[in-house]
């Protein structure tokens, strides 16, 4: 029975480190009595297997059947190599040199096994808030460098105790090579301080219990989590929530809540099967769910909007805080207004000092900031709103190979993107590039993504807007070439790339604002696009935005502008019959500004039309956060409606132009006659669906292109998204939407990168 022996080498790339990959390999190899080794290298996981030829043959299929849940293999190569006579299997320490083609896993929510131990009084990790295993725990947020090994993480300064070490070294243990493995004896510790950072001396010894008591008393706590700090407060305590809002200068923007379990979520919102899957997924995003009126959540948690953002505990600390029938907690990013999330203890104590009453801190450093992700469900599909924790930095697979590009992203809701091979590496959510902290975060993210993608691209992509920080940054950074990409073209191409489309499509970019090639503000654009170029084949007739930026914060100005478009110089009379009359003293000046083009840029933005209609209906004349008026208008549109308002399409200079003046006329008439605003809001949505579909149809007739790609912040509006998809499909269009990225500006960096790469190829460089 002297069967022939064989030795093979396998190289796995993809998300293969920090996900229990090596233990799984080890278990199968030892079960089958195979010799050899497995090691993490910067190029991926290397496995050598030696044994009887038949068994060696069966190894890979057997392993693929038992792939650890969080692993994702991008590529595996196999080669035969010469025998070495190894009879035992071992796990070797990592190799440092070479190409770093190994992907860092996103952070993973605490697993069921660990939760059980956490709540078992007999377990040595009973109540220990840093419990984890190879299936769960922090990843991205604790790395200093690749490969993912304890020495390269912020766990490096916690030497394992003998018991933890034996788990870490025992291939049969589920903590075998769990890099953040820890226990109360050897691992990170939790403590509580007052608002000045002085540890509490007189409280009970258990900081979690202390925190729960304080929360029940209505106190505001800053809690150090996975990718940053949260500000937490009892979500059922109206007075406490208002206090948090006042201190955070966040007057109305909806706040997310965390609840202990699914049933608690179901008490406060409508949870369908798709929402349920998302809530329970290891990514644990905040899921926007339709609120229940009787849910017991304080009114100022998410005023005026239809949805409540909900998430389930994703760290053991959260699970302990919310255990039992603890009330839902508001968990909002621990930052000051407009700044990115706080990362370190000292930073948080300084920046959150006047907001939090107490701090729940620990000594496991957060090395990479990562905000909570936000998602919603439309027609059973996930629509990302913010792609960050749990998702980043998992690369987005592309259908072909591109040259290396670094795309610096937009100005608001920024992320950045590195394109390498057939993968797109998007950073966690960075935010608005207005604060010094966000700019620092942008540069941290650039370094991090260059290390993760192990390349430093010399070809840069940025927006066309000359005043964006990211545009100026592109000019400052060392580069071989810069490609400036139109904002809405980037929107469309990012959705194309996610769907593997490179042929010509009709892109519907329905958005707030972006800088157009003609220097005006765009935002309701039909772009005949491929991956490198576009032609503007349709758009909304432009109207002035009196006051520029001011018009974004004050929708009544846009309403006035649309009235002026529709009624000419008669508009102040009409406006006086609507709720806009409060602004009557300013009408003359506003009119002159628009007449003479003083600080009144022309815009074709659809987002601003939503704002304006909200103002015409008296729902909201000024906003305290972006998208507020549009969201409240969407909330109002809850009666079924078939008949649309009239609108006009015009054809001029190769473009289909949408004229909404007839719509405004009838809508205003209905408003003046006292028609129910719910009906008007519904009819407005129906009309936009009709108008956009008619335009797409008109353009298809001229161009013969039948693929429609949807992107832009307006598609966060679920009525619009659902309506446009259905209507276009009914007309025979093949419709594509984002699959991984948000339709808002969180997708821009990918589009910039793909367009730059394509132009680079076409230039033949």
């Amino acid at each position, binding site marked *: 029975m002297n069967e022939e022996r064989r030795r093979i080498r396998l190289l796995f790339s993809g998300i293969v480190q920090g996900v229990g990959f090596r233990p799984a390999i080890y278990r199968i190899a030892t079960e089958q009595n195979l010799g050899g080794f497995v090691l993490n290298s910067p190029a991926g996981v290397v496995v050598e297997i030696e044994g009887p030829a038949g068994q060696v043959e069966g190894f890979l299929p057997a392993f693929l059947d038992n792939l650890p849940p969080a692993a994702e293999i991008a590529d595996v190569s196999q080669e035969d190599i010469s025998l070495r006579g190894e009879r035992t299997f071992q796990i070797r320490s990592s190799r440092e040199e070479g190409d770093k083609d190994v992907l860092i896993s996103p952070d993973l929510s605490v697993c069921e096994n660990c939760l059980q131990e956490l709540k078992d009084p007999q377990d040595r990790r009973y109540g220990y808030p840093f419990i984890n295993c190879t299936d769960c725990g922090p990843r991205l947020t604790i790395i200093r460098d690749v490969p993912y090994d304890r020495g390269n993480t912020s766990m490096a300064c916690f030497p394992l105790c003998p018991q933890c070490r034996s788990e870490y070294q025992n291939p049969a243990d589920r903590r075998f090579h769990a890099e953040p493995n820890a226990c109360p004896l050897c691992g990170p510790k939790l403590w509580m301080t007052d608002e000045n950072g002085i540890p509490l001396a007189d409280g009970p010894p258990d900081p979690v219990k202390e925190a729960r008591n304080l929360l029940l008393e209505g106190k505001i706590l800053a809690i150090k989590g996975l990718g940053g700090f949260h500000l937490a407060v009892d979500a059922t305590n109206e007075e406490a929530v208002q206090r948090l809002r006042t201190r955070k200068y966040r007057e109305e923007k909806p706040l997310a809540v965390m609840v202990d379990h699914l049933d608690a979520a179901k008490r406060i919102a409508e949870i369908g099967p798709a929402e349920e899957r998302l809530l329970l997924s290891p990514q644990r995003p905040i899921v926007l769910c339709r609120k229940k009126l009787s849910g017991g959540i304080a009114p100022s948690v998410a005023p005026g909007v239809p949805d409540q953002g909900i998430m389930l505990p994703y760290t053991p600390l959260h699970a302990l805080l919310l255990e039992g029938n603890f009330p839902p907690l508001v968990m909002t990013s621990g930052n*000051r207004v407009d700044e990115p999330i706080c990362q370190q203890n000292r930073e948080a104590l300084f920046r959150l000092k006047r907001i939090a009453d107490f701090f729940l801190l620990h000594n496991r450093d957060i090395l990479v900031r990562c905000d909570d992700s936000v998602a919603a469900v439309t027609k059973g599909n996930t629509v990302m709103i913010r792609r960050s924790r749990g998702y980043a930095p998992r690369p987005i697979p592309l259908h072909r190979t591109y040259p290396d590009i670094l795309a610096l992203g937009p100005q608001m809701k920024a992320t950045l993107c590195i394109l390498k091979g057939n993968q797109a590496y998007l950073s966690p959510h960075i935010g608005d590039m207005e*604060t*010094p902290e966000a700019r620092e975060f942008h540069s941290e993210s650039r370094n991090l993504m260059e290390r993760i993608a192990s390349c430093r691209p010399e070809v840069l992509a940025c927006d066309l807007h000359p005043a964006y920080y990211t545009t100026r940054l592109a000019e400052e950074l060392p580069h071989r070439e810069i490609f400036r990409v139109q904002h809405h073209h980037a929107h469309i191409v990012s959705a194309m790339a996610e769907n593997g489309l490179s042929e010509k499509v009709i892109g519907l970019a329905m958005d707030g604002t972006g800088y157009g090639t003609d220097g005006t503000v765009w935002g309701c654009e039909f772009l005949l696009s491929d991956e490198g170029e576009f032609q503007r084949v349709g758009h909304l007739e432009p109207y002035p935005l009196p006051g520029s930026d001011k*018009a974004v914060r004050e929708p009544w100005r846009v309403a006035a502008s649309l009235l002026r478009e529709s009624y000419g110089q008669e508009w102040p009379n009409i406006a006086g019959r609507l709720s806009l009359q409060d602004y009557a003293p300013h009408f003359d000046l506003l009119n002159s500004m628009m*007449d003479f083009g*003083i*600080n009144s840029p022309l815009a074709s933005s659809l987002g601003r039309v939503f704002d304006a209609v909200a103002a015409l209906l008296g729902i909201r004349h000024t906003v305290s956060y972006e998208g507020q008026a549009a969201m409240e208008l969407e909330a109002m549109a809850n009666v079924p409606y078939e008949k649309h308002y009239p609108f006009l399409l015009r054809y001029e200079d190769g473009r289909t132009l949408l004229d909404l003046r007839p719509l405004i006329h009838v809508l205003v008439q209905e408003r003046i006659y006292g028609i129910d605003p719910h009906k008007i809001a519904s009819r407005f949505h129906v009309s936009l669906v009709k108008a956009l579909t008619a335009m797409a149809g008109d353009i298809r007739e001229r161009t013969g292109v039948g693929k429609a790609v949807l992107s832009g912040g307006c598609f966060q509006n679920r009525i619009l998204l659902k309506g446009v998809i259905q209507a276009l499909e009914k007309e025979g269009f093949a419709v594509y939407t984002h699959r991984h990225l948000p339709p808002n500006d969180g997708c821009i960096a990918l589009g910039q990168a793909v367009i730059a790469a394509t132009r680079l190829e076409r230039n033949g460089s």
Partner: protein
Amino acid sequence: MNRERILLEHGGGGLLSHELVTEVFLPFFKNACLERLEDSAVVTLGDRKFCFTTDSYVIDPIFFPGGDIGSLAVHGTINDLSVCGGIPLMLSAGFILEEGFPMEDLKRITRSMAEAAKTAGVSIVTGDTKVVARGAADGLFINTSGIGRIEYPSPLSVESIQPGDAILVSGTIGDHGATVLCKRKELGLISEIRSDSAPLNGLVASILAASPNIHCMRDPTRGGLGAILAEIAGQSGLSLSIREAELPVREEVRGVCEILGFDPFFLANEGKVAIFCAAPDAERILDVLRNHEYGRDARIIGSVGERDGGGLILQTIIGGSRVVDLPLGELVPRIC
């Protein structure tokens, strides 16, 4: 943006103006004096230091509450000399007149120039006049140049600014810019706002006498206080921290800006000076400023941070902070 041709923004005092100077003029004119990009050139003749400056005035409207193009041309050049530490000695005046310009208006403007010069104690010692055909210019343009003598011992320049310095402004900001906006004939804006156009040589002389530790001064004209501070942050590599709540703004100016959607931080001033000085001297300088008729609303508005390229940072009223980038020029909207 098409940068093949001159755009209006190239004259707006923002990023494009800056590019025009550094990418077109500097490479050709190349010399150490010009490269400092201060308001005036500082030259040494024998053992004495002088400063020399020039400026052209092309404003619309030419008459406005608080002054006209003539007084503005005199004040502007006096102020450019003053902020370089110069005691203004003499000015020149050049006129470019459009065919058909009313003689009455010219006389009125000339009278106001003479009065402005007299009040400031300087004389206009040379001049020039050109008339161009109708349409080749808009009414009249004035150029003034000036020479001043420098007696302050230490150099006043961006290079002298130190980490830790205090930043002061001599009064309310945006008055001139807001006045001109309101008086553009198109805007039927009724308002009590007046331009702050004023000669600053007296005010500057009194603070220079009060403290030997003044490091740099600027008159925040085009682009406003925001643009000159952003420019200084860029040139020096120092981070400048400004407290928004401390910026003095007249209620009427704030009201007009509110409606038009402008920020007084970026509107022109014609009688204000921004001062960088050693922090311990800030209060004393502030007292001197406040005792002067052109400095009653002076404030300490911020401080100079480390040499870390952090830029101009505005500490906002609601407790956050925002980086202020050098504006591109008036016409590019910031939105989107």
